């Protein structure tokens, strides 16, 4: 599979000179499978530019995997051109809720007065599914979701294809109320789906000195992210969901702090950036960090 990051900012889009290197669009990752199927992980504002490219070469079947419905993970959906492609089959997966069906919850955004177009009026053929907590097959990949610690119903996704595994946990506070160092692995939120992944994309919103003022906000500290990754025995960690107040320079300080906590190769810890590509085929290849 081939993954490409279209947005990795957390909470709110942050265009501007201070964020140009790693990008200001919110969460969206495209995953192209060997079978020709396409997955899109979350529908943040990065979905708009993805849609421009994808509209010129539409997949036969498209699966959008939503981790949760906070606006920074949903706002791009209404600006995703393929959503308005007549006849295109789009499957949207998301966390269950005891309150309302996934389609009803998404329609709360895609309807007036928040948005001019109603979800029911889009041209593509949209089908809604509960995030699969037992494995499902999509094309050449096996996909499984698990509920994780965040605010409101939220899942992470594990995608396996040809012996390689990508795990996506963009919004996750695994250390809420506990110190991960002392907790058995089976009691750690998200550990089950992250275990042994070749590449883990994980929430790294707060630096350690920022976290005490944000306990319970649903995001991870640098130390928690790295301890989580270490306990899950992942191959590489891609730090994701950058805080909207973090400039490019501050993100690089966060990266240094993260690498200092990683027992393996420093090259296997990196910051997500718009345009980053991750190839998981025979081996694992992550594109080098931008120089600009």
């Amino acid at each position, binding site marked *: 599979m081939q993954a490409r990051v279209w947005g990795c900012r957390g909470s709110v889009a942050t265009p501007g000179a201070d964020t140009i290197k790693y990008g200001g669009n919110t969460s969206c990752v495209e995953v192209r499978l060997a079978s020709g199927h396409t997955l899109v992980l979350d529908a943040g504002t990065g979905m708009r530019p993805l849609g421009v490219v994808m509209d010129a070469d539409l997949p036969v079947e498209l699966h959008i995997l939503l981790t949760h419905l906070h606006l920074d993970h949903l706002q791009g959906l209404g600006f995703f051109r393929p959503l308005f492609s007549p006849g295109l089959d789009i499957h949207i997966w998301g*966390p*269950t*809720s*005891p309150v309302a069906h996934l389609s009803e919850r998404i329609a709360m955004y895609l309807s007036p007065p928040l948005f001019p177009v109603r979800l029911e009026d889009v041209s593509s053929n949209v089908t809604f599914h*509960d995030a699969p*907590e*037992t494995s499902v097959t999509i094309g050449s990949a096996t996909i499984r979701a*698990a*509920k*994780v*610690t965040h605010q409101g*119903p939220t899942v992470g996704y594990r995608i396996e294809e040809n012996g390689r595994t990508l795990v996506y946990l963009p919004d996750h506070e695994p250390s*809420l*109320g*506990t110190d991960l160092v002392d907790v*058995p*692995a*089976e*009691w*750690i*939120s998200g*550990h*089950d789906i992250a275990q042994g992944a070749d590449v883990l994309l994980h929430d790294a919103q707060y630096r350690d000195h920022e976290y005490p003022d944000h306990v319970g906000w649903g995001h991870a500290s640098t130390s928690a992210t790295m301890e989580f990754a270490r306990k899950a025995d992942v191959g590489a960690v891609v730090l994701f969901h950058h805080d909207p107040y973090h400039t490019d320079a501050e993100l690089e300080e966060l990266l240094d702090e993260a690498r200092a906590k990683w027992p393996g190769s420093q090259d296997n810890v990196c910051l997500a950036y718009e345009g980053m590509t991750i190839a998981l085929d025979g081996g694992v290849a992550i594109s080098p960090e931008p120089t600009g």
Partner: protein
Amino acid sequence: MNDSLGAPGAPKSLPLILARELASNLATPMFLLDSGGMLVFFNDAAAMLLGKSFAELGEIPAGEFGAALQLSTPDGESVRRRDSPAGIAFFEHRPAHKNVLATAYDGVRRQYEATAYPLFGAAGEMHGVVAVFWEVAAGNLGA
């Protein structure tokens, strides 16, 4: 989802993980059963009353745990495990509260107010049971 039937080391569902973290941060004695009927955790406050830490006891079937406690009413009438608050929450999927006597692992018999309730997930699936209990003041014993 919990397909472990309580096997130690098996991944726990998020509702159980959150319940454990809640329990870990409380001074109220609390224990957790999973959906397979295993005792999977009790906190330090519970350990003080039960006479053994969870690290010492480990995960055990709830039936074994209940048998060790030798539950009875304050009048001395034996309470079947399925009629205990945790048993009712587990088997009947409803909250329950009782005043009971129980013998701790250190041999001390105490009187408790005990409340238990089932944990249901977003899709209505059963994740386990939370039970909290308070020791009744010694002066009330046998009241």
